[in-house]
């Protein structure tokens, strides 16, 4: 027994096995493995055929190396039928078998492996007299591994296709939201202008008409806020971000300053509000939506809003607590969905909390609430450290 030859053969198997599955793209995976097999075994050609799903009389050429043939399909014939009826077989090229070849070949031996759902692999040695049974047995487990890698390629290409589809749909949605927002806002602005011109001639209008015009204006403002909200919501995780160190205490103070809240509401801001690494505009928007939500929920004579944070292992947990009307249990999930709002909240656009959830999700955190009807609500959210 030639020990050195045996070791060489085992290492050859190792080399083949290591060349499989290094790429998830079908052609690259085939290229890396099959070119190595051709080189090391001194073979000339290889190709993979698969029966056409729509036309049973044709086999499609899925891969070929070398690949100079114009022929992309091969008509069904007896040799192909007998190949695909087996797991593996070997035969000589004869005038009757050359019909299985994508290129003109007139000599040598062919080795076929059934790749199951992926078709069939043909290896051809132009100078080869025959493939020995040992050679076939050695290649068999390697081909089994190759089949597994082809399945992975198939899943990958499906996933890539889905991702591409999703990307396109996302882009379409984004474009749609932007177009709609722009197209809707423009007539609104025109209506606003027309109302203000009409009101300039108020002397000619009676009181009821004036009141109706005010009502129209109010509704226009609401619709404008709704459209801005939709646009903001659609862009929240798509806009380019600039992450920096953000002092959340400063952000909260700025937001409260901008909100112009009634003097009956007191804000208590914890000294422990941390510095986080995020996009300033997003964090501003997050606090703005939660604090304005707390302000608008206030029904007490003396309103108090607490903004606190506590440090957890992986993240910061923030809380915005108010002593307002509270939210019924049935709304606890629903209010984070777009256009969902509490029945009596007619001023709300139903978008603010959806934006909050989208921002928090963007940073890998979560948002939830606890509430007691009549006593108040606490919104919690987490941001990774």
């Amino acid at each position, binding site marked *: 027994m030639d020990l050195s030859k045996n070791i060489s053969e085992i290492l050859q198997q190792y*080399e083949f096995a*290591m060349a499989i599955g290094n790429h998830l793209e079908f052609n690259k995976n085939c290229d890396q493995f099959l070119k190595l097999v051709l080189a090391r075994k*001194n073979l000339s050609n290889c190709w993979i055929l698969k029966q056409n799903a729509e036309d049973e009389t044709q086999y499609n050429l899925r891969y070929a190396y*070398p690949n100079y043939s114009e022929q992309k399909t091969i008509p069904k014939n007896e040799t192909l039928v007998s190949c695909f009826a087996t797991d593996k077989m070997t035969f000589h090229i004869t005038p009757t078998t050359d019909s299985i070849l994508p290129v003109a070949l007139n000599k040598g031996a062919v080795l076929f492996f059934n790749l199951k759902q992926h078709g069939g692999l043909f290896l051809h*040695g132009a100078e080869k007299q025959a493939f020995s049974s040992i050679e076939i047995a050695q290649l068999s487990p390697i081909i089994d591994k190759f089949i597994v890698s082809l399945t992975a390629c198939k899943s990958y290409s499906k996933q890539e296709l889905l991702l591409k589809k999703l990307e396109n749909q996302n882009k379409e949605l984004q474009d749609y939201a932007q177009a709609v927002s722009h197209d809707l806002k423009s007539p609104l602005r025109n209506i606003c202008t027309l109302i203000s011109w009409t009101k300039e001639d108020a002397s000619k209008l009676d009181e009821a008409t004036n009141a109706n015009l005010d009502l129209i204006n109010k509704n226009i403002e609401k619709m404008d806020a709704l459209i801005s909200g939709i646009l903001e919501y659609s862009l929240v995780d798509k806009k380019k971000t600039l992450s920096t160190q953000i002092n959340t205490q400063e952000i909260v103070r700025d937001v409260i300053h901008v909100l112009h809240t009634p003097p009956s509401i007191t804000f208590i801001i914890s000294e422990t509000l941390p510095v986080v690494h995020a996009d300033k505009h997003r964090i501003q928007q997050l606090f703005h939506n939660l604090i304005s939500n707390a302000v608008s929920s206030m029904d007490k004579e003396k309103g108090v809003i607490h903004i606190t944070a506590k440090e957890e292992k992986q993240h910061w947990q923030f809380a915005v607590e108010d002593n307002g009307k509270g939210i019924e249990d049935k709304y606890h999930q629903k209010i984070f969905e777009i256009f969902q709002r509490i029945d009596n909240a007619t001023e709300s656009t139903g978008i603010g909390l959806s934006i909050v959830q989208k921002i928090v999700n963007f940073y890998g955190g979560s948002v939830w609430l606890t509430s007691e009807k009549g006593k108040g609500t606490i919104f919690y959210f987490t941001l990774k450290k």
Partner: protein
Amino acid sequence: MYIESTDIKEIVTIIQQHTAATTAVLFVAENSTIAIDELVSTLQKTDIQFIGGIYPKIIHHDQVYDHGIVVVWIADVLETFAVQNLNHDQIEIPSVQLPANKSFCTFTVVDGLTANISNYLSELYRNFGTNTTFLGGGAGSLSLEQQPCVFDNQGFYMDAAVVVIFETSISIGVQHGWKKIAGPYIATKTSNNVIEQINWQNALEVYKETIMQDSGADIRIDNFFSIAKGYPFGIVKENAECVVRDPIATNPKGELICVGEVPENTVLDILKGENSQLIDAAKDAANIAINAIEHPSQAIIIDCISRALFLEDQFTEELQKANGIIQLKNNATHISGALTLGEISSYNGFLEFFNKTIVIGLFK
């Protein structure tokens, strides 16, 4: 034809006299005193169709020359083209239809010091496959300093290859004669032509140990080439002579730099050469080629420069013996060629880039 003249006008006139309906393949010796770029630009201004390369030495019959030009005229040319940017992953090979009922040879001269020669040959084979027989060699300087070394009617290039495809009956003989002394090993970490690890250990350490056991010589950076030229690697192939990879240098990290790519996880042997075995291999290559063709009229010998460096004075014997066999069949056969940085052939199947090998192509 061997041209000794250094006068560019005279060289061009000589070539012009022979080029009716043919393409001239020029083998230029690197130590020629001719201004090669001037020669190329002068040729470009004529109607001569040509491709060529600059080699460490050139061959005409059984003589090796350091200076001058050897010219081979090729008829029935289907296509000539250059492939540039071989050091990049994406290369473009033009599509050429080769009728299946005819016999073709694809002769290529590649910059032997460019990266990714394997990728170039792989793409060449993908495009033309078994419709043609391949033959060629690596051009470049023996100093291993990369510079423009291949040319055609359109330019004078580095990191490029030039190709001529012509209709002919051809037979090829490829042999090296190096024998295994140790192995198999696995090249467990490589990067193109650099072997970083063998059997998961520092490549130089493993290589050094084997050489020490065989010769007692302690291999270091400063004496690497003088010892390693006698101990190349062999890439194991089934039922065929292995493909030789020539380690030409090492570095302080203990990596081995080879001529030609060694893919990761390649199974390797360490080989050793005896002068007589190498010369016998050259005779075998000539016999294989001569037995596969009737009435050859032209021979191209692509022989590795490192065989000449290894065989030293006995290299003339290798060339004389190969010549003798070819001329025994037809003493009118024109024998031309070069000592190259790597040899190219599709002998018996897959297209390969060899080192330390002799490739003999015979044409009708």
